[in-house]
Protein backbone atom coordinates (compact mmCIF):
# COMPACT_ATOMS: atom_id res chain seq x y z
CA UNK A 1 0.00 0.00 0.00
CA UNK A 2 1.36 3.39 -0.86
CA UNK A 3 1.90 5.67 2.08
CA UNK A 4 1.07 9.34 1.84
CA UNK A 5 4.15 11.25 2.93
CA UNK A 6 3.41 13.09 6.13
CA UNK A 7 5.62 14.52 8.79
CA UNK A 8 4.98 11.93 11.40
CA UNK A 9 7.01 9.23 13.05
CA UNK A 10 4.75 6.42 11.90
CA UNK A 11 4.67 3.40 9.64
CA UNK A 12 1.46 2.55 7.80
CA UNK A 13 -1.49 4.57 9.18
CA UNK A 14 -3.41 1.35 9.87
CA UNK A 15 -0.80 0.20 12.37
CA UNK A 16 -0.14 3.42 14.24
CA UNK A 17 -2.31 2.72 17.25
CA UNK A 18 -1.15 -0.85 17.65
CA UNK A 19 2.53 -0.01 17.42
CA UNK A 20 2.23 2.87 19.84
CA UNK A 21 0.38 0.69 22.33
CA UNK A 22 3.07 -1.95 21.99
CA UNK A 23 5.62 0.73 22.80
CA UNK A 24 3.63 1.74 25.87
CA UNK A 25 3.46 -1.84 27.03
CA UNK A 26 7.21 -2.32 26.62
CA UNK A 27 8.03 0.96 28.32
CA UNK A 28 5.71 0.62 31.28
CA UNK A 29 5.43 -3.09 31.89
CA UNK A 30 5.89 -2.38 35.61
CA UNK A 31 2.74 -0.25 35.75
CA UNK A 32 0.29 -1.39 33.10
CA UNK A 33 -0.91 -4.23 30.91
CA UNK A 34 -1.94 -3.44 27.38
CA UNK A 35 -4.60 -5.71 25.88
CA UNK A 36 -4.90 -5.84 22.12
CA UNK A 37 -8.17 -7.55 21.23
CA UNK A 38 -9.96 -5.31 21.83
CA UNK A 39 -7.67 -2.48 22.90
CA UNK A 40 -7.67 -1.58 26.55
CA UNK A 41 -5.04 -0.81 29.15
CA UNK A 42 -5.28 -1.97 32.75
CA UNK A 43 -3.20 -1.23 35.78
CA UNK A 44 -0.78 -3.98 36.63
CA UNK A 45 -2.48 -5.01 39.86
CA UNK A 46 -6.07 -4.97 38.54
CA UNK A 47 -8.59 -5.92 39.72
CA UNK A 48 -8.06 -4.26 43.10
CA UNK A 49 -10.41 -6.06 45.44
CA UNK A 50 -13.00 -3.89 47.13
CA UNK A 51 -11.96 -0.70 45.33
CA UNK A 52 -14.25 1.03 42.86
CA UNK A 53 -12.62 0.75 39.44
CA UNK A 54 -12.20 3.91 37.37
CA UNK A 55 -12.36 3.57 33.61
CA UNK A 56 -12.00 6.25 31.01
CA UNK A 57 -11.41 6.27 27.32
CA UNK A 58 -11.96 8.13 24.12
CA UNK A 59 -10.44 8.62 20.75
CA UNK A 60 -6.66 8.31 20.58
CA UNK A 61 -4.51 11.28 19.68
CA UNK A 62 -4.81 12.95 23.09
CA UNK A 63 -1.87 11.22 24.71
CA UNK A 64 -0.83 10.91 27.46
CA UNK A 65 -4.57 10.93 28.25
CA UNK A 66 -5.97 8.38 29.03
CA UNK A 67 -3.53 5.47 28.84
CA UNK A 68 -0.80 7.49 30.51
CA UNK A 69 -2.99 7.92 33.56
CA UNK A 70 -3.54 4.24 34.26
CA UNK A 71 -1.99 3.15 37.52
CA UNK A 72 -2.17 3.45 41.25
CA UNK A 73 -4.03 6.60 42.31
CA UNK A 74 -5.63 7.28 38.93
CA UNK A 75 -7.36 5.01 36.40
CA UNK A 76 -7.85 1.26 36.57
CA UNK A 77 -8.35 1.07 32.82
CA UNK A 78 -8.28 3.20 29.70
CA UNK A 79 -9.91 2.38 26.36
CA UNK A 80 -8.25 3.98 23.36
CA UNK A 81 -10.36 4.38 20.22
CA UNK A 82 -8.97 4.94 16.77
CA UNK A 83 -7.39 8.36 16.42
CA UNK A 84 -10.06 10.99 17.15
CA UNK A 85 -12.77 8.32 17.11
CA UNK A 86 -14.62 7.15 20.21
CA UNK A 87 -13.79 3.64 21.35
CA UNK A 88 -16.37 0.93 20.87
CA UNK A 89 -18.53 -0.60 23.62
CA UNK A 90 -16.71 -3.93 23.61
CA UNK A 91 -13.54 -2.20 24.75
CA UNK A 92 -15.13 -0.65 27.83
CA UNK A 93 -17.07 -3.85 28.44
CA UNK A 94 -13.94 -6.01 28.45
CA UNK A 95 -12.12 -3.42 30.54
CA UNK A 96 -14.93 -3.39 33.10
CA UNK A 97 -14.79 -7.16 33.43
CA UNK A 98 -11.01 -7.02 33.84
CA UNK A 99 -10.84 -4.34 36.52
CA UNK A 100 -14.03 -4.66 38.54
CA UNK A 101 -12.93 -5.60 42.04
CA UNK A 102 -16.48 -6.15 43.22
CA UNK A 103 -17.16 -2.55 44.21
CA UNK A 104 -18.33 -1.47 40.79
CA UNK A 105 -17.05 0.66 37.96
CA UNK A 106 -17.14 4.40 37.38
CA UNK A 107 -16.87 5.34 33.71
CA UNK A 108 -15.51 8.85 33.20
CA UNK A 109 -16.94 9.94 29.87
CA UNK A 110 -16.07 13.06 27.94
CA UNK A 111 -19.14 14.71 26.49
CA UNK A 112 -18.90 13.87 22.82
CA UNK A 113 -21.89 12.28 21.12
CA UNK A 114 -19.85 9.23 20.16
CA UNK A 115 -18.22 8.75 23.54
CA UNK A 116 -21.48 9.13 25.39
CA UNK A 117 -23.31 6.63 23.20
CA UNK A 118 -20.53 4.04 23.19
CA UNK A 119 -20.03 4.24 26.95
CA UNK A 120 -23.78 3.91 27.43
CA UNK A 121 -23.87 0.71 25.40
CA UNK A 122 -20.83 -0.56 27.27
CA UNK A 123 -22.44 0.13 30.63
CA UNK A 124 -25.52 -1.81 29.55
CA UNK A 125 -23.37 -4.77 28.54
CA UNK A 126 -21.42 -4.79 31.82
CA UNK A 127 -24.57 -4.36 33.88
CA UNK A 128 -26.03 -7.40 32.15
CA UNK A 129 -23.03 -9.28 33.58
CA UNK A 130 -23.87 -8.12 37.09
CA UNK A 131 -21.25 -5.37 37.32
CA UNK A 132 -22.36 -2.17 39.03
CA UNK A 133 -21.62 0.65 36.59
CA UNK A 134 -22.15 4.38 36.65
CA UNK A 135 -21.29 6.81 33.84
CA UNK A 136 -20.41 10.40 34.72
CA UNK A 137 -20.11 12.87 31.88
CA UNK A 138 -17.41 15.54 31.86
CA UNK A 139 -18.40 18.72 30.01
CA UNK A 140 -16.26 21.69 30.96
CA UNK A 141 -15.51 23.56 27.74
CA UNK A 142 -16.87 27.10 28.19
CA UNK A 143 -16.35 27.86 24.50
CA UNK A 144 -19.61 26.01 23.92
CA UNK A 145 -22.22 28.39 25.22
CA UNK A 146 -25.48 26.50 25.29
CA UNK A 147 -26.55 22.91 25.69
CA UNK A 148 -29.90 23.33 23.95
CA UNK A 149 -28.72 24.00 20.43
CA UNK A 150 -25.54 21.96 20.57
CA UNK A 151 -24.35 18.57 21.73
CA UNK A 152 -23.40 20.46 24.90
CA UNK A 153 -20.06 21.41 26.34
CA UNK A 154 -17.20 19.15 25.41
CA UNK A 155 -15.13 17.29 27.94
CA UNK A 156 -11.63 18.76 27.92
CA UNK A 157 -9.04 19.72 30.57
CA UNK A 158 -11.12 18.95 33.64
CA UNK A 159 -11.03 15.30 32.59
CA UNK A 160 -7.36 15.06 33.55
CA UNK A 161 -8.00 16.63 36.93
CA UNK A 162 -11.03 14.41 37.55
CA UNK A 163 -9.00 11.30 36.83
CA UNK A 164 -6.42 12.33 39.42
CA UNK A 165 -8.89 13.42 42.08
CA UNK A 166 -11.34 10.54 41.72
CA UNK A 167 -8.40 8.15 41.42
CA UNK A 168 -7.21 9.34 44.82
CA UNK A 169 -10.67 9.01 46.32
CA UNK A 170 -11.18 5.51 44.91
CA UNK A 171 -7.85 4.49 46.40
CA UNK A 172 -9.05 5.93 49.74
CA UNK A 173 -12.06 3.65 49.70
CA UNK A 174 -14.91 5.79 48.35
CA UNK A 175 -17.84 3.66 47.28
CA UNK A 176 -19.42 4.03 43.84
CA UNK A 177 -22.06 6.47 44.99
CA UNK A 178 -19.67 8.76 46.86
CA UNK A 179 -17.18 8.58 44.01
CA UNK A 180 -19.85 9.46 41.46
CA UNK A 181 -20.86 12.45 43.55
CA UNK A 182 -17.26 13.63 43.78
CA UNK A 183 -16.81 13.17 40.04
CA UNK A 184 -19.94 15.20 39.33
CA UNK A 185 -18.76 17.92 41.70
CA UNK A 186 -15.32 18.18 40.15
CA UNK A 187 -16.94 18.46 36.73
CA UNK A 188 -19.19 21.23 37.97
CA UNK A 189 -16.28 23.06 39.57
CA UNK A 190 -14.06 22.87 36.49
CA UNK A 191 -14.08 25.08 33.41
CA UNK A 192 -11.75 25.13 30.43
CA UNK A 193 -11.02 26.98 27.23
CA UNK A 194 -8.64 26.12 24.41
CA UNK A 195 -7.02 27.71 21.39
CA UNK A 196 -4.91 26.56 18.47
CA UNK A 197 -2.11 28.13 16.49
CA UNK A 198 -1.92 25.29 14.02
CA UNK A 199 -4.06 22.41 12.90
CA UNK A 200 -3.11 18.76 13.17
CA UNK A 201 -2.91 15.83 10.82
CA UNK A 202 -4.43 12.44 11.53
CA UNK A 203 -2.39 9.56 10.10
CA UNK A 204 -5.48 8.23 8.36
CA UNK A 205 -5.97 11.47 6.41
CA UNK A 206 -2.51 12.83 5.90
CA UNK A 207 -3.72 16.41 5.59
CA UNK A 208 -4.60 19.05 8.17
CA UNK A 209 -7.97 18.85 9.92
CA UNK A 210 -8.46 22.53 9.18
CA UNK A 211 -6.56 25.14 7.23
CA UNK A 212 -5.31 28.11 9.12
CA UNK A 213 -3.44 31.17 7.86
CA UNK A 214 0.07 32.14 8.95
CA UNK A 215 -1.28 35.06 10.94
CA UNK A 216 -4.39 33.41 12.30
CA UNK A 217 -5.41 31.45 15.34
CA UNK A 218 -8.49 29.50 16.27
CA UNK A 219 -10.22 30.22 19.58
CA UNK A 220 -12.49 27.79 21.39
CA UNK A 221 -11.22 24.58 19.87
CA UNK A 222 -11.96 21.14 21.17
CA UNK A 223 -9.37 18.41 21.22
CA UNK A 224 -10.17 16.62 17.99
CA UNK A 225 -8.67 18.83 15.39
CA UNK A 226 -12.13 20.19 14.80
CA UNK A 227 -12.21 23.89 14.06
CA UNK A 228 -13.06 26.15 16.98
CA UNK A 229 -15.65 28.79 17.72
CA UNK A 230 -13.97 31.66 15.94
CA UNK A 231 -11.00 32.50 13.84
CA UNK A 232 -8.95 35.57 14.77
CA UNK A 233 -5.81 37.34 13.74
CA UNK A 234 -2.84 36.26 15.84
CA UNK A 235 -2.59 38.22 19.09
CA UNK A 236 -0.06 38.56 21.86
CA UNK A 237 0.32 36.09 24.70
CA UNK A 238 -1.20 38.58 27.13
CA UNK A 239 -4.27 39.20 24.98
CA UNK A 240 -4.86 35.52 24.28
CA UNK A 241 -4.36 34.49 27.89
CA UNK A 242 -6.57 37.28 29.20
CA UNK A 243 -9.35 36.36 26.77
CA UNK A 244 -9.24 32.70 27.76
CA UNK A 245 -8.90 33.27 31.48
CA UNK A 246 -11.68 35.87 31.58
CA UNK A 247 -13.85 33.61 29.44
CA UNK A 248 -13.53 31.00 32.17
CA UNK A 249 -13.83 33.30 35.17
CA UNK A 250 -16.83 35.19 33.81
CA UNK A 251 -18.61 32.14 32.48
CA UNK A 252 -22.17 32.30 33.79
CA UNK A 253 -24.09 29.45 35.39
CA UNK A 254 -24.43 26.58 32.93
CA UNK A 255 -27.22 24.03 33.04
CA UNK A 256 -27.44 20.74 31.19
CA UNK A 257 -29.00 17.33 31.43
CA UNK A 258 -27.04 14.11 31.35
CA UNK A 259 -28.06 10.50 31.37
CA UNK A 260 -26.99 8.67 34.49
CA UNK A 261 -27.94 5.26 35.74
CA UNK A 262 -30.48 5.18 38.56
CA UNK A 263 -29.77 2.18 40.78
CA UNK A 264 -33.14 2.63 42.48
CA UNK A 265 -35.18 2.79 39.30
CA UNK A 266 -32.85 0.41 37.48
CA UNK A 267 -32.87 2.56 34.35
CA UNK A 268 -31.16 5.51 32.72
CA UNK A 269 -32.52 8.81 33.96
CA UNK A 270 -31.87 12.39 32.96
CA UNK A 271 -30.08 14.36 35.65
CA UNK A 272 -29.99 18.13 35.48
CA UNK A 273 -26.89 19.87 36.75
CA UNK A 274 -25.92 23.50 37.05
CA UNK A 275 -22.40 24.91 37.44
CA UNK A 276 -22.24 27.99 39.59
CA UNK A 277 -19.95 30.74 38.29
CA UNK A 278 -16.61 31.48 39.93
CA UNK A 279 -16.64 33.96 42.78
CA UNK A 280 -14.09 36.28 44.27
CA UNK A 281 -12.26 34.36 46.96
CA UNK A 282 -12.38 30.99 45.18
CA UNK A 283 -9.27 28.86 45.34
CA UNK A 284 -8.44 26.92 42.19
CA UNK A 285 -6.16 24.37 40.62
CA UNK A 286 -4.88 25.99 37.42
CA UNK A 287 -4.05 23.64 34.57
CA UNK A 288 -2.19 25.04 31.58
CA UNK A 289 -2.13 22.41 28.90
CA UNK A 290 -0.25 22.12 25.62
CA UNK A 291 -2.26 20.87 22.64
CA UNK A 292 0.81 18.80 21.78
CA UNK A 293 3.05 20.97 19.64
CA UNK A 294 3.46 23.96 21.94
CA UNK A 295 6.58 23.68 24.08
CA UNK A 296 6.36 23.85 27.85
CA UNK A 297 8.33 27.10 27.88
CA UNK A 298 5.42 28.91 26.25
CA UNK A 299 3.03 27.38 28.77
CA UNK A 300 4.98 29.10 31.54
CA UNK A 301 4.40 32.40 29.76
CA UNK A 302 0.69 31.60 29.69
CA UNK A 303 0.77 30.60 33.34
CA UNK A 304 2.44 33.88 34.28
CA UNK A 305 -0.27 35.99 32.67
CA UNK A 306 -3.11 33.70 33.73
CA UNK A 307 -1.99 33.99 37.33
CA UNK A 308 -2.04 37.78 37.07
CA UNK A 309 -5.56 37.76 35.63
CA UNK A 310 -6.75 35.39 38.35
CA UNK A 311 -5.24 37.55 41.08
CA UNK A 312 -6.85 40.66 39.65
CA UNK A 313 -10.19 38.89 39.81
CA UNK A 314 -9.86 37.56 43.32
CA UNK A 315 -9.21 33.97 42.28
CA UNK A 316 -6.37 32.28 44.13
CA UNK A 317 -4.32 29.63 42.37
CA UNK A 318 -3.35 27.10 45.03
CA UNK A 319 -2.11 24.24 42.84
CA UNK A 320 -1.10 23.90 39.22
CA UNK A 321 -0.42 21.47 36.43
CA UNK A 322 1.55 22.58 33.40
CA UNK A 323 2.40 20.50 30.37
CA UNK A 324 1.01 18.38 27.53
CA UNK A 325 -1.61 16.19 29.23
CA UNK A 326 -4.67 16.30 26.94
CA UNK A 327 -3.48 16.92 23.44
CA UNK A 328 -4.55 16.93 19.80
CA UNK A 329 -1.66 15.13 18.15
CA UNK A 330 0.95 17.73 17.17
CA UNK A 331 -1.37 20.73 17.26
CA UNK A 332 0.18 23.95 18.55
CA UNK A 333 -1.89 25.82 21.05
CA UNK A 334 -2.96 25.56 24.64
CA UNK A 335 -5.89 25.28 26.97
CA UNK A 336 -6.49 26.66 30.40
CA UNK A 337 -8.57 24.87 33.03
CA UNK A 338 -9.53 26.39 36.34
CA UNK A 339 -10.99 24.03 38.91
CA UNK A 340 -12.48 25.43 42.08
CA UNK A 341 -11.30 23.38 45.03
CA UNK A 342 -12.49 22.52 48.49
CA UNK A 343 -10.75 20.40 51.12
CA UNK A 344 -12.02 17.14 49.67
CA UNK A 345 -10.79 17.95 46.17
CA UNK A 346 -7.42 19.25 47.35
CA UNK A 347 -6.82 16.22 49.52
CA UNK A 348 -7.19 13.82 46.61
CA UNK A 349 -5.35 16.11 44.20
CA UNK A 350 -2.40 15.92 46.58
CA UNK A 351 -2.68 12.16 47.05
CA UNK A 352 0.03 9.90 45.60
CA UNK A 353 -0.20 8.60 42.06
CA UNK A 354 2.05 6.35 40.03
CA UNK A 355 1.22 6.15 36.34
CA UNK A 356 3.26 6.46 33.14
CA UNK A 357 2.49 10.18 32.75
CA UNK A 358 1.65 11.42 36.23
CA UNK A 359 3.62 10.74 39.36
CA UNK A 360 3.24 12.15 42.79
Amino acid sequence: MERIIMKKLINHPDNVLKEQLQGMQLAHADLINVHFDPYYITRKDAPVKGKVALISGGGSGHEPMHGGFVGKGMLDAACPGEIFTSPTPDQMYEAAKAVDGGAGVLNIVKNYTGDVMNFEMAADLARADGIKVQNIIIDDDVAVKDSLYTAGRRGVGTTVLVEKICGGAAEAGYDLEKLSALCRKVNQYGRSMGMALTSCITPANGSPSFEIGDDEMEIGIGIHGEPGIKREKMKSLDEITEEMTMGIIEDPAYTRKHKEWSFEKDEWIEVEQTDEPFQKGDSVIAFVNSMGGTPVSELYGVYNKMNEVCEKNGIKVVRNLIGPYITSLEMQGCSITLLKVDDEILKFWDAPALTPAFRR
Partner: protein
Amino acid sequence: MKKTQVLDWLYRTAAFMEENKTYLTKLDTAIGDADHGNNMHRGFSNVIEQLPKYEEKDIGSICKAVAMVLISKVGGASGPLYGTMFMQAANTVNGKEELSGDDLKKFLKAGLEGIIMRGKASVGDKTMVDAYTPALAAFSDSIENGDDISSALDKAVAASEEGMKSTIPLIAKKGRASYLGERSKDHQDPGATSLTLMLTAMRDASKA
Protein backbone atom coordinates in the same frame (compact mmCIF):
# COMPACT_ATOMS: atom_id res chain seq x y z
CA MET B 1 -36.32 -8.32 -1.63
CA LYS B 2 -34.52 -11.65 -1.44
CA LYS B 3 -31.79 -12.53 1.01
CA THR B 4 -29.22 -12.52 -1.79
CA GLN B 5 -30.26 -8.96 -2.50
CA VAL B 6 -29.87 -8.05 1.14
CA LEU B 7 -26.36 -9.49 1.03
CA ASP B 8 -25.72 -7.66 -2.23
CA TRP B 9 -26.90 -4.48 -0.53
CA LEU B 10 -24.24 -4.92 2.17
CA TYR B 11 -21.50 -5.62 -0.37
CA ARG B 12 -22.54 -2.60 -2.41
CA THR B 13 -22.61 -0.43 0.71
CA ALA B 14 -19.08 -1.55 1.56
CA ALA B 15 -17.98 -0.72 -1.98
CA PHE B 16 -19.61 2.72 -1.77
CA MET B 17 -17.95 3.44 1.55
CA GLU B 18 -14.58 2.50 0.12
CA GLU B 19 -15.12 4.65 -2.98
CA ASN B 20 -16.44 7.57 -0.95
CA LYS B 21 -14.08 7.29 1.99
CA THR B 22 -12.14 10.42 1.11
CA TYR B 23 -15.28 12.29 0.18
CA LEU B 24 -17.04 11.52 3.45
CA THR B 25 -13.96 12.39 5.45
CA LYS B 26 -13.65 15.64 3.54
CA LEU B 27 -17.21 16.53 4.49
CA ASP B 28 -16.35 15.64 8.10
CA THR B 29 -13.20 17.74 7.92
CA ALA B 30 -15.24 20.84 7.25
CA ILE B 31 -17.60 20.51 10.21
CA GLY B 32 -16.38 17.52 12.23
CA ASP B 33 -13.21 15.71 13.04
CA ALA B 34 -12.28 14.29 9.70
CA ASP B 35 -12.96 10.63 10.33
CA HIS B 36 -16.42 9.77 9.03
CA GLY B 37 -15.15 8.21 5.81
CA ASN B 38 -12.56 6.20 7.67
CA ASN B 39 -15.13 5.11 10.24
CA MET B 40 -17.64 3.93 7.67
CA HIS B 41 -15.01 2.24 5.57
CA ARG B 42 -13.54 0.45 8.57
CA GLY B 43 -17.02 -0.63 9.64
CA PHE B 44 -18.27 -2.00 6.35
CA SER B 45 -15.02 -3.61 5.27
CA ASN B 46 -15.25 -5.54 8.53
CA VAL B 47 -18.90 -6.31 7.83
CA ILE B 48 -18.13 -7.96 4.52
CA GLU B 49 -15.13 -9.73 5.98
CA GLN B 50 -17.42 -11.33 8.55
CA LEU B 51 -20.34 -11.80 6.20
CA PRO B 52 -19.42 -15.24 4.81
CA LYS B 53 -19.91 -16.60 8.33
CA TYR B 54 -23.54 -15.46 8.36
CA GLU B 55 -24.66 -15.81 4.75
CA GLU B 56 -26.48 -19.05 5.48
CA LYS B 57 -28.58 -17.49 8.25
CA ASP B 58 -31.85 -15.57 7.97
CA ILE B 59 -32.02 -11.86 7.21
CA GLY B 60 -32.67 -10.96 10.85
CA SER B 61 -29.57 -12.81 12.01
CA ILE B 62 -27.47 -11.30 9.25
CA CYS B 63 -28.55 -7.78 10.16
CA LYS B 64 -27.90 -8.45 13.84
CA ALA B 65 -24.39 -9.61 12.94
CA VAL B 66 -23.91 -6.44 10.90
CA ALA B 67 -25.06 -4.41 13.89
CA MET B 68 -22.54 -6.10 16.16
CA VAL B 69 -19.70 -5.52 13.73
CA LEU B 70 -20.61 -1.85 13.29
CA ILE B 71 -20.91 -1.37 17.04
CA SER B 72 -17.54 -2.95 17.72
CA LYS B 73 -15.60 -1.60 14.75
CA VAL B 74 -16.80 1.89 13.94
CA GLY B 75 -16.71 3.87 17.18
CA GLY B 76 -17.44 7.58 17.05
CA ALA B 77 -21.04 8.73 16.82
CA SER B 78 -21.84 6.81 13.67
CA GLY B 79 -20.89 3.42 15.16
CA PRO B 80 -23.60 3.30 17.83
CA LEU B 81 -26.06 5.07 15.53
CA TYR B 82 -25.73 2.73 12.56
CA GLY B 83 -25.24 -0.19 14.95
CA THR B 84 -28.49 0.58 16.72
CA MET B 85 -30.21 1.15 13.39
CA PHE B 86 -29.27 -2.32 12.16
CA MET B 87 -30.07 -3.88 15.52
CA GLN B 88 -33.57 -2.40 15.71
CA ALA B 89 -34.26 -3.07 12.04
CA ALA B 90 -33.06 -6.67 12.43
CA ASN B 91 -35.57 -7.28 15.18
CA THR B 92 -38.41 -6.71 12.69
CA VAL B 93 -37.22 -9.37 10.25
CA ASN B 94 -36.28 -12.30 12.47
CA GLY B 95 -36.33 -15.62 10.67
CA LYS B 96 -37.12 -14.11 7.25
CA GLU B 97 -35.48 -15.19 4.03
CA GLU B 98 -37.19 -12.57 1.91
CA LEU B 99 -38.73 -9.13 2.58
CA SER B 100 -41.98 -7.81 1.19
CA GLY B 101 -42.46 -4.09 0.60
CA ASP B 102 -44.23 -3.89 3.90
CA ASP B 103 -41.46 -5.82 5.66
CA LEU B 104 -38.91 -3.43 4.30
CA LYS B 105 -41.01 -0.48 5.37
CA LYS B 106 -41.08 -1.80 8.96
CA PHE B 107 -37.42 -2.63 8.73
CA LEU B 108 -36.49 0.88 7.67
CA LYS B 109 -38.84 2.48 10.16
CA ALA B 110 -37.37 0.55 13.07
CA GLY B 111 -33.90 1.55 11.88
CA LEU B 112 -34.76 5.24 11.97
CA GLU B 113 -36.37 4.84 15.36
CA GLY B 114 -33.18 3.20 16.59
CA ILE B 115 -31.11 6.15 15.42
CA ILE B 116 -33.46 8.61 17.10
CA MET B 117 -33.64 6.60 20.31
CA ARG B 118 -29.86 6.55 20.46
CA GLY B 119 -29.07 10.07 19.25
CA LYS B 120 -32.18 12.11 20.07
CA ALA B 121 -31.89 14.13 16.86
CA SER B 122 -34.85 15.76 15.12
CA VAL B 123 -35.21 16.76 11.50
CA GLY B 124 -33.34 20.01 11.00
CA ASP B 125 -30.52 19.18 13.41
CA LYS B 126 -28.23 18.53 10.45
CA THR B 127 -27.71 14.80 10.90
CA MET B 128 -28.38 11.54 9.11
CA VAL B 129 -31.94 11.86 10.39
CA ASP B 130 -32.49 14.68 7.86
CA ALA B 131 -31.93 12.25 5.02
CA TYR B 132 -33.47 9.19 6.61
CA THR B 133 -36.79 10.78 7.63
CA PRO B 134 -37.95 11.97 4.18
CA ALA B 135 -36.55 8.81 2.61
CA LEU B 136 -38.63 6.64 4.90
CA ALA B 137 -41.71 8.76 4.27
CA ALA B 138 -41.25 8.54 0.50
CA PHE B 139 -40.68 4.79 0.70
CA SER B 140 -43.74 4.21 2.87
CA ASP B 141 -46.00 6.33 0.68
CA SER B 142 -44.78 4.56 -2.41
CA ILE B 143 -45.33 1.09 -0.96
CA GLU B 144 -48.74 2.10 0.35
CA ASN B 145 -49.56 3.34 -3.14
CA GLY B 146 -48.77 -0.14 -4.41
CA ASP B 147 -45.35 0.49 -5.97
CA ASP B 148 -42.83 -2.30 -5.99
CA ILE B 149 -39.78 -2.19 -3.75
CA SER B 150 -37.45 -1.10 -6.49
CA SER B 151 -39.48 1.96 -7.49
CA ALA B 152 -40.22 2.76 -3.87
CA LEU B 153 -36.50 2.75 -3.26
CA ASP B 154 -36.02 5.04 -6.26
CA LYS B 155 -38.26 7.52 -4.50
CA ALA B 156 -36.58 6.94 -1.16
CA VAL B 157 -33.16 7.63 -2.65
CA ALA B 158 -34.41 10.79 -4.33
CA ALA B 159 -35.89 11.97 -1.04
CA SER B 160 -32.76 11.02 0.84
CA GLU B 161 -30.64 13.00 -1.59
CA GLU B 162 -32.89 15.98 -1.17
CA GLY B 163 -32.80 15.60 2.60
CA MET B 164 -29.03 15.31 2.44
CA LYS B 165 -28.78 18.51 0.42
CA SER B 166 -31.22 20.21 2.76
CA THR B 167 -28.57 19.88 5.48
CA ILE B 168 -26.27 22.28 3.63
CA PRO B 169 -27.73 25.59 4.84
CA LEU B 170 -28.54 24.28 8.32
CA ILE B 171 -26.85 25.12 11.59
CA ALA B 172 -26.00 21.83 13.26
CA LYS B 173 -27.60 21.14 16.62
CA LYS B 174 -26.36 17.62 17.27
CA GLY B 175 -23.00 15.93 17.06
CA ARG B 176 -19.63 17.51 16.68
CA ALA B 177 -20.70 19.98 14.01
CA SER B 178 -22.95 21.71 16.54
CA TYR B 179 -19.87 23.24 18.21
CA LEU B 180 -19.33 25.34 15.14
CA GLY B 181 -22.62 27.19 15.41
CA GLU B 182 -23.04 29.55 12.44
CA ARG B 183 -19.86 28.18 10.91
CA SER B 184 -21.53 24.82 10.32
CA LYS B 185 -23.65 26.46 7.63
CA ASP B 186 -22.92 25.81 3.95
CA HIS B 187 -21.62 22.32 4.52
CA GLN B 188 -23.33 19.03 3.81
CA ASP B 189 -23.67 16.66 6.73
CA PRO B 190 -21.42 13.61 6.38
CA GLY B 191 -23.82 11.25 8.15
CA ALA B 192 -26.72 12.28 5.91
CA THR B 193 -24.41 11.52 3.01
CA SER B 194 -23.38 8.05 4.18
CA LEU B 195 -27.03 7.26 4.92
CA THR B 196 -27.93 8.23 1.36
CA LEU B 197 -25.16 5.99 0.04
CA MET B 198 -26.55 3.12 2.07
CA LEU B 199 -30.04 3.61 0.59
CA THR B 200 -28.60 3.98 -2.89
CA ALA B 201 -26.83 0.66 -2.44
CA MET B 202 -30.13 -0.88 -1.37
CA ARG B 203 -31.87 0.54 -4.43
CA ASP B 204 -29.13 -0.78 -6.73
CA ALA B 205 -29.30 -4.21 -5.07
CA SER B 206 -33.07 -4.30 -5.49
CA LYS B 207 -32.63 -3.90 -9.24
CA ALA B 208 -29.75 -6.33 -9.67
